[in-house]
């Protein structure tokens, strides 16, 4: 799908309506500087004439695999020349210093032997790496003592049979995905296997995997670089937003492959909710899945005639096939009331007073409150999924429409744009509910809820138009309406995201939870 590019250009075209916010604009410097300055902050960047962006837009660069390789090679060559050490050693040292060239050179100039030692390049050399037959040798790993056994040892002299070495390396590389920091198998020995020794020992197939992993560590070691998580995508993204900034910004980036994700946590785009809220929300939803199951169910009963209705489109406006009763899927209320007061459906009125005093009532209120937001979150998540199906059906629809109306392929593209807008806006709406769940009321929440309401109404309206039968779609008046509504939805989304991002950057929201995660503490945790 090349949907995002199109969508982003839609967004940019709305830029002129946005408040000027160059302050928070990280201008996309060509050479990003790779600074390891702990305090290179978001707003310290100069404005060098780049187009003004919305407050929620962040600067980033996409690198293809060859760029990533080139960057590494350049650094290795530089260190190789400056420090007069081999390329293998330069590579190991750079990896040891997590590719911070400046600190490596400084430290090395200062105390070379300590640096070499710490990086596992111990200087007590026993000659260049090679396989050897040693008389009277017994392998400490397999206990083999057969004469003529091929053995291998790194600079540390810990010698094992080649067969054991191979097993060990293949376990590390294939089993554990390690490459840059594989140590000598001896207990407590921190000498690191270099690429040259590895090439002597293992099969070409494993060598290829090893070099691939080494290549990956470059990106994994740098806080400013991350792999695009899309399956089969090999690009890396560079972005200056650091972990400690994640309470101020939601860094959504988009790869050349079209995938949009959060640079902070690698999940799909979750603006406007900050990473930590997303993490907590997803955990909460998983924990409460039992209570939540009934809500996300795909079927509901008509509030009037009780016949079962299955939701099969993204729109919340339900019409019972049997009795023609019109109601809202989310709150089951009359649809006619929603035209003017959608308000009732996006905001949870905090219960107060007598009820809340009672502890039991309190926990019920808190569950109700959670379900209120979860219900709406799950609804948009589900609708976004259904809208995705609709997107696939859209192409068919576009073909039919061409036949019926005589419009050209270009002329029916507006359906495509509408379908994309629906998905992106639902994605945003979904996260506004998680955001709202953790939001403590202050003088800004009302504006937020109004923005949320406006976007939600626009999305439902567009969704409804979009589901009209082909015969109606052929009407050129409806086409104009859909195009207008699409652009309106995108506009409302930009306004909502811009407002939340600005307030987040300036610390004006109050949340009833912490925004920066606490680090790892004791105790077991599940891997990955």
């Amino acid at each position, binding site marked *: 799908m090349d949907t995002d590019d199109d969508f982003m250009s839609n967004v940019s075209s709305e830029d002129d309506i946005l408040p000027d916010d160059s302050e928070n604009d990280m201008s996309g410097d060509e050479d990003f500087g790779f600074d390891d300055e702990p305090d290179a902050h978001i707003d310290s960047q100069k404005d060098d004439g780049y187009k003004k962006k919305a407050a929620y837009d962040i600067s980033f660069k996409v690198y293809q695999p060859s760029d990533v390789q080139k960057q590494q090679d350049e650094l290795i060559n530089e260190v190789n020349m400056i420090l007069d050490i081999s390329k293998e050693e330069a590579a190991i040292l750079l990896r040891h210093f997590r590719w911070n060239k400046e600190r490596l050179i400084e430290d090395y100039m200062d105390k070379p032997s300590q640096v070499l030692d710490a990086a596992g390049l111990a200087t007590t050399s026993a000659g260049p790496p090679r396989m050897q037959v040693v008389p009277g040798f017994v392998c400490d790993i397999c*206990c083999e003592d057969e004469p003529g056994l091929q053995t291998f040892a790194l600079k540390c002299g810990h010698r094992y049979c080649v067969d054991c070495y191979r*097993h060990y390396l293949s376990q590390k590389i294939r089993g554990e995905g390690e490459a840059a920091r594989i140590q000598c198998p001896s*207990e407590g020995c921190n000498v690191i296997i270099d690429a040259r020794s590895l090439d002597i020992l293992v099969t070409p197939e494993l060598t290829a995997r090893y070099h691939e992993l080494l290549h990956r560590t470059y990106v994994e070691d740098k806080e400013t670089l991350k792999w695009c998580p899309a399956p089969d995508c090999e690009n890396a993204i560079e972005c200056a937003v650091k972990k400690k900034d994640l309470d101020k910004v939601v860094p959504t980036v988009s790869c050349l492959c079209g995938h949009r994700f959060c640079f902070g946590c690698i999940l799909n785009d979750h603006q406007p909710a900050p990473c930590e809220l997303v993490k907590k929300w997803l955990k909460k939803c998983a924990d409460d899945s039992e209570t939540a199951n009934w809500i996300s169910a795909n079927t509901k009963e008509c509030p009037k005639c009780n016949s079962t209705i299955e939701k099969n489109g993204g729109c919340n406006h339900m019409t019972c096939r049997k009795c023609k009763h019109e109601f809202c899927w989310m709150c089951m209320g009359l649809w006619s009331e929603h035209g003017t007061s959608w308000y009732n459906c996006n905001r949870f009125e905090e219960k107060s007073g007598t009820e809340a005093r009672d502890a039991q009532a309190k926990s019920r209120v808190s569950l109700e409150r959670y379900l209120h937001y979860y219900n709406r979150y799950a609804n948009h998540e589900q609708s976004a999924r259904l809208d995705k199906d609709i997107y696939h059906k859209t192409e068919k629809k576009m073909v039919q429409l061409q036949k019926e109306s005589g419009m050209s392929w270009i002329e029916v593209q507006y359906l495509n744009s509408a379908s994309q807008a629906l998905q992106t806006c639902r994605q945003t709406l979904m996260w506004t509910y998680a955001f709202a769940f953790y939001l403590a009321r202050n003088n800004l929440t009302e504006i937020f809820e109004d923005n949320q309401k406006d976007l939600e109404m626009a999305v439902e309206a567009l969704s409804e138009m979009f589901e009209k039968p082909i015969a109606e779609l052929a009407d050129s008046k409806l086409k104009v309406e859909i195009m207008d509504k699409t652009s309106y939805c995108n506009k409302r989304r930009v306004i909502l995201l811009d407002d939340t991002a600005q307030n987040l950057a300036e610390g004006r929201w109050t949340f009833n939870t912490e925004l920066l995660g606490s680090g790892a503490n*004791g*105790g077991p945790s599940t*891997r990955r």
Partner: protein
Amino acid sequence: MSVPFAAKRLGKELNKISSSLPPGIELVSADNFEEWLLDIKVLDNNPLYQNQTYRLKFRFSPSYPIEPPEVVFIQLPDRPIPIHPHIYSNGIICLDLLGQQGWSPVQNVESVCMSLQSMLTGNSKNERPPGDEEFVRANTMRPKDIQFYYHDNDV
């Protein structure tokens, strides 16, 4: 390779430990190269473990000793789970040398038993790891799939 990697090494280990083992360590059963049982005792008079015998279950993967064995304490009427800040009440042990990072293929069944012995000997805290109850209730994973944060490796 005709003989599986683990079998070759375990055969040699078995030969050695059938004839001699350090004091306080006893082989209970080793009928195959997948699972062995051993008993360990603490030799000094640490009141926490005095007069107690503990049962260890070792499980070996085919690529042992390249991969660490899975080692847990098991409970029997006369074999309790030792109280220790790194031993969960379901017998799972949080010890870095049993993890992929801390394991060295030079280690063996005997050296693991000795490390556990000394881990008990050196302990004076009559307590389980933090979050023991919750962990024991929730855990459905094999020890090797649990990522432990080693609290402090010198206990």
